[in-house]
């Protein structure tokens, strides 16, 4: 009798837990913001452990990279010499244009864009497998990271902040299924939407029917919708085949160790409904005019 009850209770536990999981999925569909906050809370709790775990692996990766660079030293040198030649020419051009630009701006009384603030953060988790492309960063609201801010490296755009806790933040990569970014393609500056689909190469959607796109065309953010500033490098067109255009991002996900979270002061369509807690604090901080950035080395100001 007791055994039978135990078996029944056991079955009940299974069914109950699976139903609970189902209910959580429904809730996630109904209130994505709540679930994202829950997710960030959990991430924040394990962030210190991930931070410790990721350090030896980063060290090994650095050694491997060093060995690789020793092996390729000669070729690398050749390449750098050639690049230097080319870049020196460009430098002359850039100086000339800079001077011209400054004069023209003065003539037109152009209002300069405000300086952007950035925070450098360590990547402590690179996760998701086949179902989601996201990163976990070791900086959160306490360092000025806020939802919707752009995450970049020297190479280009990595993604945007999807959720932020006090000391950790989750980045939605541009390759994620849920990522949609308004972009400009090529020198024609054709408008399109860069849509991730969990593959390594996001696709371009909603192009004009008469748009001409070729392999190698550069893709940059357009700044429409106010989520990103215009002109951030994203990638280049990798393939154009019947109706499907794919883009190779400049940023290599596996090499990311440190990234910059840039606050351009744009809230765009990602503005959070006021809910209290860490998110509203960061939203309020973004809304008010910024005083001088805090002294820590990670903070600083950069021209966009």
């Amino acid at each position, binding site marked *: 009798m007791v055994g039978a009850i135990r078996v029944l209770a*056991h079955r009940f*536990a*299974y069914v109950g*837990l*699976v139903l*609970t*999981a*189902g*209910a*959580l*999925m429904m*809730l*996630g*569909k109904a209130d994505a913001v709540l*679930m994202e906050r*829950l*997710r960030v809370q*959990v*991430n924040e709790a*394990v962030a210190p*452990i*991930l931070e410790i*775990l*990721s350090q030896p*692996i*980063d060290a090994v*990766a650095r050694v*491997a990279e060093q060995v690789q660079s020793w092996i390729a030293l000669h070729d690398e040198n050749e390449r750098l010499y050639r690049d230097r030649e080319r870049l020196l020419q460009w430098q002359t051009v850039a100086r000339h244009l800079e001077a011209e630009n400054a004069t023209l701006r003065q003539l037109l009384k152009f209002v300069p864009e405000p300086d952007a603030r950035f925070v450098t953060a360590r*990547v*402590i*988790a*690179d*996760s*998701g*497998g*086949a*179902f*989601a*492309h*996201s*990163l*976990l960063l070791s900086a959160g609201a306490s360092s000025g990271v806020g939802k919707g801010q752009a995450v970049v490296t020297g190479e280009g755009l990595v993604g945007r902040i999807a959720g932020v806790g006090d000391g950790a933040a*989750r980045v*939605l990569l541009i390759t*994620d*299924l*849920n990522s949609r970014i308004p972009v400009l393609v090529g020198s024609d500056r054709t408008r399109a939407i860069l849509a991730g*689909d*969990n*593959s*390594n190469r996001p696709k371009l959607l909603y192009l004009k029917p008469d748009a001409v796109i070729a392999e190698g065309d550069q893709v940059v953010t357009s700044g429409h919708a106010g989520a990103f500033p215009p002109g951030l490098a994203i990638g280049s067109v990798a393939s154009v085949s019947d109706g499907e255009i794919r883009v190779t991002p400049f940023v*290599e*996900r*596996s*090499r*990311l*160790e440190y990234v910059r979270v840039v606050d351009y002061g744009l809230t765009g369509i990602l503005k959070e409904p006021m809910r209290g807690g860490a998110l509203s604090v960061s939203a309020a901080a973004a809304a008010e005019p910024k005083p001088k950035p805090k002294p820590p080395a990670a903070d600083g100001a950069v021209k966009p």
Partner: protein
Amino acid sequence: MTPTFWSKLDVWARQLTPFGLTVLLLLIGVVPLHIPGFGAVAPVLPLIAVFHWALYRPQLMPTVAVFVIGLLQDALTGTPIGVSAAVFVVVHGVVNTQRRFFFGKSFAIVWLGFALVSTGAFVATWVLVSVFYGVLIQPQALFFQALLTLGCFPLLSWALLRWQMAFLRA
């Protein structure tokens, strides 16, 4: 402080290790390894641990613990919350009903069993996530993820067995 207190604490700590090890595997699974292309096909290590403990020490891995591990997996990897939780609980349940079959069988049979169960788990996850987002997720990365998980099974299972022999001799 009587010795019985310490021995109780000792037993208690040992019995928590299946859960602790599974959580550790989960965390190791999401640490960036800086291997090109690895992020999208990283093996689902906790699935191996859930299978292993459900098979060999089910009393130390209650269903609720499996549920919590699934939630943690969802929160960390970015899959919709509840998906891995449901899949892990079902895996636990399936293995629990088939335990008798696996008793005394060779490792190859256990591995084959894991291949079947994990394939089912990946397909179920794929269906759930696809339904959640209302689009078909590309299956290529998933295929390699399943293969890698299967490939990690012997090594991890061996390590967990050693642990079990050393610390959980019940």
